[in-house]
């Protein structure tokens, strides 16, 4: 009897418990935002003072940009194909067929191009930077850096953040082109829609603003991914296990931040 009562009373607690995480998450978010702001500021100062080596930026741009092309190619084509097929399925009988062109191009440029590319970069670049810097922390290489009078943020952080800012818009441009091309091909094969009709639909509802909107996302995402990963990497503690834990946390943190920022774009820029 008593046991049953205890269970009954603790039931609401069991339900609430997962949500208690939100309070803590909010607190953690506030702490992190402060540190992220500081890191962004330090990066700016390092750039202005000319302490960032051009060669390091170039190297990071190569790693983030060129080496990401294959995976971005694959995700963007799949996004184009799937949008085209699903759109075709919905549109075919009820609306003018050229709307498929509108749908694919708008989805890719406004949403899928920037967001999917960003999520790919979280896995490919964000996790890598966090683990790389985290390993340097736990093996005392960051301490060694400081002991030699070097500043880890200027030498290690800034080039990665700048490279992200440069690379992301370029990759998103690439993803847009690939995604739309794949969409056209899929529309052709699947719904028998000609390229002319597809492009007619795309042009009919096109605003140049859309491109600006998509690329604004790219710039923001390209900045936030390396910023979070550098921040998380440099605050790693506790050996190899710590590196693993920090990397997982960093990936979660980046993806959540991207989704939240993505949700903030329409009310701010699509009025």
């Amino acid at each position, binding site marked *: 009897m008593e046991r049953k009562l205890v269970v009954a009373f603790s039931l609401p607690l069991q339900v609430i418990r997962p949500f208690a995480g939100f309070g803590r998450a909010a607190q953690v978010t506030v702490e992190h935002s402060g540190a992220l702001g500081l890191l962004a500021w330090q990066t700016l100062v390092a750039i202005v003072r000319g302490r960032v080596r051009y060669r390091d930026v170039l190297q990071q741009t190569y790693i983030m940009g060129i080496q990401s092309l294959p995976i971005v190619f694959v995700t963007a084509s799949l996004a184009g194909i799937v949008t085209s097929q699903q759109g075709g399925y919905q549109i075919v009988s009820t609306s003018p067929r050229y709307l498929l062109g509108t749908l694919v191009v708008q989805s890719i440029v406004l949403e899928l191009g920037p967001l999917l590319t960003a999520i790919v970069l979280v896995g490919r670049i964000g996790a890598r930077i966090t683990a790389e810097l985290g390993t340097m922390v736990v093996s005392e290489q960051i301490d060694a850096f*400081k002991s*030699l009078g070097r500043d880890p943020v200027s030498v290690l952080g800034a080039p990665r953040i700048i490279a992200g800012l440069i690379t992301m818009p370029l990759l998103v441009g690439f993803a847009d082109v690939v995604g739309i091309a794949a969409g056209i091909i899929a529309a052709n094969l699947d719904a028998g829609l000609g390229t002319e009709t597809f492009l007619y639909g795309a042009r009919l509802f096109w605003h140049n603003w859309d491109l600006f909107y998509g690329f604004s996302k790219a710039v923001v995402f390209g900045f936030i991914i390396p910023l979070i990963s550098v921040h998380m990497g440099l605050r790693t503690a506790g050996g190899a296990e710590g590196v693993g834990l920090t990397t997982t946390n960093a990936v979660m943190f980046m993806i959540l931040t991207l989704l939240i920022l993505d949700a903030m774009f329409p009310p701010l820029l699509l009025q």
Partner: protein
Amino acid sequence: MITYRNVHKAFDKPVLSGVSFTVESGEMFALFGPSGTGKSVLLKTTIGLVVPDRGDVEVDGMSVYHGGRSAVDDVRRKSGYVFQHAALFDSLNVYENVAMGIPEDELASLPKRDTAHRVWDVLENVNLDPHEVMAKIPSELSGGMKKRVGIARAIVGRPKILLWDEPTTGLDPINTAAIERLIHRLSTELEVTSILVTHDVEGGLQMCHRVAMLEGGTLRFIGTPAEFRSCPDPVVRAFVDRAAAEAALDMVTESR
């Protein structure tokens, strides 16, 4: 001269709780203590790699923690730090690793040939063959070689202070003897103030002018090697001979 004044540091639990002592200019000073008592933490407070919660460190009469950013930069420029596991930059080769030891502004104004000369000389000074190792990356080096490169990187900037964090731990006896001879030679040749954290008590006692024992967050002993050898404290005795170590096992803090 390096003075630790009432240095406190806690992480999850207190590590240093009021450490005070002075190391004179040109002195060789050894710091012993069981693993995990905060020897590395103490050494790191000297150059601001760990910031004390309370207390201060003074180097040549200048406060490290009350002199702003430039005070930390100054003491870092004056010091060479030899890390426990060498902490070489694993994306750079030996040459680049050692060259990083030259202060940034100096390196920028130094002609490439002079930099190369300096790296070459310092590698020879730590008994490495520059020809052989210069282009290697750290993962291609043996443990003893890594430590030597770490030492080369610490001294290439011509420091006045050398901080050694267990430079011989994990080395075989022959390498240990070689590195210790190197430490002794460099410390006298370069006329530096040295603080040597080591588990090789015999080596430390032979080389150093004074020694100290850190245990339970404070200095349990400080004095000359002769005083250390004759100290009746059981924990100190444990470091002097192995048999006493067994006896003292229960007396030290459970912090391993």
